[in-house]
């Protein structure tokens, strides 16, 4: 109790976030029909699962500096384990409340995290990236080969209504599943946050920052990597268990390289440095994926561009960009940046629109035409083979870029002046 009281202020934002996330679906509640919006619930559930997955990925990438290309293996193995547990419960072989299915996934993830981790953690840096890629390809080809465990191409379908609930809920509606997901997501996120403060979490940071020195101090970096990998597998497995409950099916897609890439993109776009970076990145990626792909098939292109821009210009990710404003905010000088931001906004918007238009034009002429889709903006049908829209898009892109470059120079000067002034003030006081 004393522990709780002492840390009370740091628990408050979590509680607040929980309440907000619980309330968001009600914003889209259809009062006339008396039911939740299915699209919003699906979207939020997807974000929840992928956020846990991205956070567990960041245990490797952010905390231990390990770049994995096969993290979906842990998510997928957790999901398969959870699916088999559900099947066993249905058959009456074992008894397990529905609420604990994600835990079964987590234990599966922990087990496979330990087994696979024993192999892959022999290496670090680039070799680790390669060996995890090999593992990912290995497992995803094995998933198509062995029918017994993986169910081949069809995957394994389950029915989540099990009559074994602890709280007497049947989980027939997406809303009930969403509530369960939210509880598990918060348990997982809090545990992962606490893990960063354990000795293991700190030593993982040490091996990331100075590998040799951590060795000198007397820690075996290999074991640190292994424990970190296995724990990360546990949390990814929880995500897998939730995945099974939401979609009621698990296919080889969950262990595929594409899923692993999703986690990598989300973590890097959001920022691997801060704890909440991956969550931010997941929200961006999933929104782009679900929101944009309704119109075109190019969401991965946008995500890819965002990713490359982050790698080239902002290695700290979105959260890093936010953190950069912290000293200025604390000094109360954000107001001075308002004008430069306002000036840079129109050209940035023009560049963005020009680029999006160009991408959409291209994708509708080739992919869209093959699928029989037509490109229309606000009811106006646009002929993608006519030169005019292409010229407009290109002109917006090029002219906007030139304008943005000019404004960016002014912005940089302003930014440097403000940060310099704050630094000087800090040094004097």
């Amino acid at each position, binding site marked *: 109790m004393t522990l709780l009281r002492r840390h009370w202020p740091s628990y408050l934002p979590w509680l607040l976030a929980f309440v907000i996330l619980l309330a968001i679906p009600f914003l889209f509640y259809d009062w006339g029909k008396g039911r939740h919006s299915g699209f919003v619930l699906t979207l939020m559930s997807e974000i929840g699962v992928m956020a846990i997955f991205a956070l567990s990925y960041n245990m490797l990438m952010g905390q231990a500096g390990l770049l994995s290309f096969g993290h979906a293996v842990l998510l997928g193995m957790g999901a398969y384990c959870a699916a088999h547990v559900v099947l066993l419960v249905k058959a009456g072989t074992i008894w397990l409340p529905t609420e604990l299915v994600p835990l079964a996934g987590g234990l599966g993830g922990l087990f496979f995290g330990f087994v696979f981790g024993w192999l892959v953690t022999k*290496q670090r840096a*680039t070799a680790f990236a390669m060996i995890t890629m090999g593992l990912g390809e290995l497992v995803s080809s094995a998933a198509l080969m062995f029918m017994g465990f993986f169910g081949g191409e069809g995957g394994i379908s389950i029915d989540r209504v099990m009559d074994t609930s602890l709280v007497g809920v049947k989980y027939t509606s997406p809303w009930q599943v969403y509530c369960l997901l939210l509880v598990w997501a918060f348990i997982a996120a809090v545990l992962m946050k606490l893990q960063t403060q354990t000795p293991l979490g700190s030593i993982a940071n040490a091996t990331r920052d100075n590998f040799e020195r951590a060795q000198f101090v007397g820690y075996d970096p290999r074991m640190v990597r292994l424990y970190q990998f296995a724990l990360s597998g546990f949390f990814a497995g929880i995500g897998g268990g939730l995945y099974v409950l939401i979609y009621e099916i698990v296919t080889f897609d969950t262990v595929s390289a594409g899923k692993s890439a999703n986690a990598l993109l989300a973590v890097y776009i959001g920022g691997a440095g801060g704890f909440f970076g991956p969550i931010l990145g997941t929200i961006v990626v999933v929104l782009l994926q679900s929101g944009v792909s309704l119109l075109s098939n190019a969401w991965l292109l946008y995500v890819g561009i965002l990713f490359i821009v982050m790698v080239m210009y902002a290695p700290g990710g979105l959260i890093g960009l936010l953190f950069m404003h912290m000293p200025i905010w604390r000094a109360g000088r954000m107001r001075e940046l308002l004008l430069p931001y306002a000036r840079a906004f129109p050209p940035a918007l023009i560049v963005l629109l020009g680029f999006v238009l160009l991408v959409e034009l291209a994708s509708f002429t080739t992919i869209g035409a093959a699928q029989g889709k037509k490109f229309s903006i606000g009811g106006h049908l646009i002929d993608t083979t006519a030169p005019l829209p292409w010229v407009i898009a290109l002109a917006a892109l090029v002219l906007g870029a030139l304008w943005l470059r000019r404004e960016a120079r002014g912005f940089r000067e302003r930014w440097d002046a403000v940060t310099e002034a704050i630094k000087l003030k800090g040094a004097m006081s």
Partner: protein
Amino acid sequence: MEVFVVSLLNGLVYGMLLFMLASGLTLILSMMGVLNFAHASAYMLGAYFAYTISVYIGFWPALVIAPLLCGLIGAAIEMFGLRRVHRNGHIAELLFTFGLALLIEKGVQMTWGLLPVPYRVPELLDFPLFKIYGTQFPAYRAFMLVISALMFGAIWLGLTRTRIGLVIQAALTHPDMASALGHNVPRIFTLVFAAGTALAGLAGVIGGNYQVTEPAMAFTMGPIVFVVVVFGGLGSLAGCFIASILMGLIQTFAVVFDVSLADLLAKFGYTVTSSTPFAEVLNVTLPRVGALLPFLMLVLILVFRPRGLMGTRDT
């Protein structure tokens, strides 16, 4: 016997194709430590460029123009992209090329569509060269062998007989020392990167119509090329060559022999039934394992012998 000879030839053709891809990647990885995920994308771009050029001008100009285009793209990537992210370390470079590979795949999908394009063998070479035990050997495969052998010779001569080749060799094993001696290592790297991408493009030109030219071809070829590079070992072109041929042979032969572990056990008088433990694993036939073998090799090599076949240092 006939199956053996035909598979040997096919494996050789595939192995040489792999070498054309892997040689550039080995040079890039050994010299600058950049694991170039976009390398197989250059292979795909080469195939697509060649397809478009062969539609308008013909296959033979494409054989020259498409690799050159790929080389130019490679040089641009190195100069405007990689150099910028270089200061953030190897992981950042790797991530950059990874993002690039994603973008190129999407770009290809948006330019040429999701379905495979009808990129075919030129008519001039579309005839069976000779018959071996009743199986025809297409002239195009012989042409592929010739091109890759020529390329192999050119690389070997370039690396051993020219001044720049010697510097590249030096930079391969001792990049810091080479730059300390006054050689412009970044410029050499741009050159190697461009040449490597051009080679990958060439592989795409002659491999695109041998296999299928589709948007997924980069992501199916990429990991296999990585396996070859790791298997061959860092800093060793000879190792890379052996690994390529070996991988080509393994993948070809794996498809041919329709046997499983259960068959092997049956020879020793042990029958596998459905109640045997691991029956499913034992019953999997070799052609189905074929796709899995390279990655099993990758994991095992990185765990037990990280320096590969003939590598000079650990991966």
